[in-house]
């Protein structure tokens, strides 16, 4: 028998949850169908049934400290089979949305993210880069310049080609800003993750027969990355219908597309700052390795460059993955499973990035300067938003879910190795 707990219902919190996407939570009558049909829920204190009644009573503390919301991969089977249309899947989604908004500091960004503040968040990068564009247009004498190489310098020429770095010089207008953004993002995640781990402190340790010592967090994290991240093991088990398979494929493609694009960006950054700047300019090296590194970092690249090929493959994977994810989400039966603002925000943003990225490349190659530069502008603004607001967006799950799953491994809530079926 556990100790007596004083329960304090919180009506405001119930209403808040309903606004975050859990509007049907009151319909639950605790039949437990959801927990029974969930392919991932553990046998001991299974979710999402208990979360439903906690939500109905507005038991804020329990819900905000609940690790189980991260174990759910949101296949929607529970919501599909719920006899009352209470949409337990949506509630867990709403709780995650709430976590995105509240975990990382400064959390006013989270508040802005939930809809009404969004124009402000868009305006920040839009104005910064518009300002840069106007200033550069003044210097260059045109808003849509064509360039040709003159030695190491770019000069405006009517017969030249489109070079984005000419209008928005990377060294001054892109890299420093994004470096600051990356730091800002890392700080956001740092505060978010430490808050997350703090919230899990009250989670009970599951006693596992035969387990000698609790594994270290690092060890758990490695296993998590190996299985859940790299192979999507939990994700694959989550839901058995066509739509779930589509979602699994779409998510895997999208994630690896990001990996490809991340690799490309890293190569370019290392090539530029490590090769061209550090090795050539500062150290004055001219050996073949330095030349190779420098070459890898110089843009625009020719289409046959392996780095460019990787970038294009990544872009195509991204579009494919997004197509799967979007068509699945659009085909969801709204009566069974809802999509929140955050779901659509993230999908839209990534679509904008993918399409404006591809568009920038295609318009550049076809020499349509008046279309190419605005497209590139949209691309930078969108990437700015993705990076800068990452800890407060749904995409933050890449960090929070990974941490939570590793923590769940550590405390025994999920097994170290995935169970073989």
């Amino acid at each position, binding site marked *: *028998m*556990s*100790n*007596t*707990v*004083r*329960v*304090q*219902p919180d*009506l405001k919190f*119930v*209403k808040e949850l*309903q606004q975050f996407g859990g509007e049907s939570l*009151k*319909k*639950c*009558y*605790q039949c437990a169908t959801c927990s029974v049909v969930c392919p991932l829920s553990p046998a001991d204190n299974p979710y999402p049934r*208990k979360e439903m*009644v*906690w939500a*109905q*009573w*507005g*038991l804020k503390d329990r819900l905000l400290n609940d690790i189980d919301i991260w174990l759910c991969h949101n296949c929607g089977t529970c919501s599909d089979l719920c006899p*009352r249309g209470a949409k337990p899947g949506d509630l867990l989604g709403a709780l995650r949305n709430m976590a995105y908004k509240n975990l990382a500091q400064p959390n006013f960004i989270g508040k802005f993210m939930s809809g009404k503040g969004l124009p402000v968040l868009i305006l920040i990068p839009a104005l910064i880069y518009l300002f840069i564009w106007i200033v550069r247009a003044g210097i260059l004498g045109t808003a849509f310049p064509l360039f040709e190489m003159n030695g190491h310098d770019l000069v405006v020429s009517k017969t030249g080609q489109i070079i984005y770095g000419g209008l928005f010089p990377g060294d001054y207008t892109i890299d420093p800003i994004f470096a600051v953004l990356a730091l800002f993002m890392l700080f956001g995640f740092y505060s978010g993750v430490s808050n997350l781990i703090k919230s899990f402190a009250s989670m009970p340790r599951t006693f596992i027969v035969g387990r000698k010592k609790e594994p270290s967090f690092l060890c758990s994290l490695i296993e998590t990355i190996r299985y859940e991240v790299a192979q999507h093991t939990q994700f694959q088990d989550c839901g058995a219908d066509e739509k779930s398979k589509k979602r699994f494929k779409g998510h895997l493609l999208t994630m690896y597309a990001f990996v490809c694009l991340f690799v490309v960006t890293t190569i370019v950054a290392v090539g530029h700052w490590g090769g061209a700047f550090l090795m050539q300019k500062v150290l004055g090296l001219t050996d073949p390795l330095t030349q190779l590194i420098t070459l890898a970092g110089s843009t625009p690249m020719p289409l046959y460059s392996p780095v460019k090929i990787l970038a294009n493959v990544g872009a195509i994977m991204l579009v494919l993955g997004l197509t799967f994810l979007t068509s699945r989400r659009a085909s969801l039966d709204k009566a069974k499973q809802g999509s929140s603002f955050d779901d659509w925000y993230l999908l839209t943003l990534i679509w904008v990035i993918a399409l404006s990225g591809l568009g920038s490349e295609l318009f550049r190659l076809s020499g349509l300067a008046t279309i190419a530069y605005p497209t590139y502008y949209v691309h930078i603004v969108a990437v700015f938003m993705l990076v800068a607001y990452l800890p407060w967006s749904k995409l933050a799950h890449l960090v929070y879910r990974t941490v939570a799953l590793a923590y769940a491994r550590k405390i025994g809530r999920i097994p170290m190795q995935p169970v073989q079926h």
Partner: protein
Amino acid sequence: MAEKLGVYICGGCEIGKALDLAGLAEHVKNSKVAPLCKVIKTNPVLCSPEGVAEIEADIKAEGLDGVVVCACSPRVKWDIFRFGDKIQVERVNLREQCVWSFQDDPNVPGLLTAMAQDYVRMGVTRLSKSAIPAPEIPETNKTLLVLGGGFTGMTAALNAAALNRDVLLVEKSDKLGGKALNMYKTFPLSAPYDKAQETGIDKLVAAVTANPKIKVLLNSSLESLEGAPGMFKATIGGAAYDVGAAILATGWVPGEGKYLEAFGYGKMKNVVTSAQFEEMAKNGKIVRPSDGKTPASVAFVLDMDLALKDVDYGVGAACEPPAPLPGDAAPAEGEGEKAFVYEQTESAKHLAISSEISSLVALKQAGYVAEFCPGAVAMVLYDHMMVPGINEKYYKAAQDNPAIMLTKAVVTGVAESGDGSLTVAAKDTLIGDSVELAADLVVLPTALVPVTAHEPTMNFVYRQGPHFPDLKLFDGFVDSNYICFPYETRRTGVYAAGCAHQPMTMANAREDAAGAVLKAVQCIESINRGVAVHPRSGDLSFPVFNFVRCTQCKRCTEECPFGALDDDEKGTPKPNYTRCRRCGTCMGACPERVIKFDSYNIDQIGSTIKEVQVPDDMVKGGPRVIVLVCENDAYPALDMAAFRGKSWSPYVRFIPVRCLGSVNAIWVADAMSKGVDGVMLLGCKYGDDYQCHFVKGSELCSRRKENIAESLKRLGVEAERVEQYEVAIDEYDKIPGLIERFMSEVISKFGPNPFKGY
């Protein structure tokens, strides 16, 4: 008596294939019963238009007064084999009881033929001892007496008035409206069934008051009800009124507070009942009684574990040892003139019985919290959320209200702090194994205790007393068998509706009132045609007493399940035909056999039993067992067994009876003296959850059986040869096994009846 009979043997439904029809007809022609049979015919399909036309032609040509249809069960095609008021019909069940349930064994040929021959002769004999009853038709009063001027009573009165009946509406208090007057709102009465709504009681009062067919008597109670349905004399406020039938809608009173003490009721100011909470809402303000402040949290405790833990539900203790039959023992000295004391039946159990209503009330009042106290939460702690039927929609709607929080819980206590705030402790909840909830106000359910739990209400001037018998079985609610016979009470002509009947919502009470009115109207319309009411609706027969031989033993007057018989000072029974339901319990009770029905009597069944051919040598010809079958449940179960291809011993002969309560001991004696090896009695289940159509019949039979066993022992016959079995209508699969067991255990064990061959 039917004297010119036509015997028709049908060959349809495989009867013709299994039996030699001509041979059967020939047998009848050569039998002892032949003189009664003017016509003996076979027909390939008797229920065909040609078959029926043939019978009709014979009736005309030969002047038949009775037709023995040897075909299928009397429970089917009764509408086809019907030849007018003057012609009696007897059905011989060759199909279900012979050819469908037995196939001749080539090693022992002739058993099926012997069976069919027995049944046809038995049928002829039975019909020949039956006459068409000629009841006296009494002068009937059609006025309906409605007791109770609440929602149910007024609805009943308006329904009756709509049927053009005069209504006498009696209300104890000084105004119409009843409990609904104290209610702020009620559960939904109409689609979409998701919102509490106004009771509409004012409109109902206005409609009743304005209706010229309804005479309202306020500040009045029924002092006594004398007579019989169709001709009751009601005494109200000293004045006498003639009424035909009555509707009991006296409703409920709130249960006593003492049963709620475990929850702090009576000690803690802020612990109130739902009735008190309703009153606050009605007055437009929900506040804490201790300080008059608006509560921020209200706990509705529905789990009544603390109040109910010592309640004895009497499960398994239903069958008390049988009381001695009246007349068996001489009355003790000083007995007889004891003052009548009404047995009080209120208990904590009423909280459990009212739990459906309590669940709905809690949902409704939780809605009041959201309505009257913005920002406050209503916590509902239930054991079972009982919202059957359409009210599921109301539950769903209540759940959707964010301010209403529900959990299953076992409430373990309520504690009070200095400022009157309360803490409810509960275990096994959905929000934790053991939790405490702070509440500004705790609301406990109000038990709906029927008025009849406290007082006899009807005040009958009947031999069996002023009250309904055995109401303890229903904890004071006026019910007899809610599954088979809703509205009906143990007193013919009185129909219960509303919360006197069982705790119910206003929506249900509205239907209940309509149903009870229809029953009451039906009762009067049966009486004025001289026929019985349910369950033998339309039966013309009635008990006829041969008072010359009556020994005034009072068995019949005491045992009548419906209190139909009164008696004079000497104890001579006084039949009240319109109270009678024609079950024949009195006929079964009478040791002098002075009671008969024209179409159902001792001699008739006795003669039918004697018509069974019993072989002198049991080893050669097989044993014989008579099965007296209750025609309400056991007989249809037998039909179903046959229909589903079950079979049983060919040595049993079934004789339907109106009720096992009508079985007279002499029939068993007749059978035994004839050499029959055993008698089986198949009747309904009895006890607390009885299924007997006549409430007491099968139970009385089982008690009388003890006496029969005694008599048999004196004669040197084993008591085990007579056995009673309880069969429900759906237990058709059990019956063949019962028969087989009786045949193997009883007959094989004891061998032939020692009286065989005398």
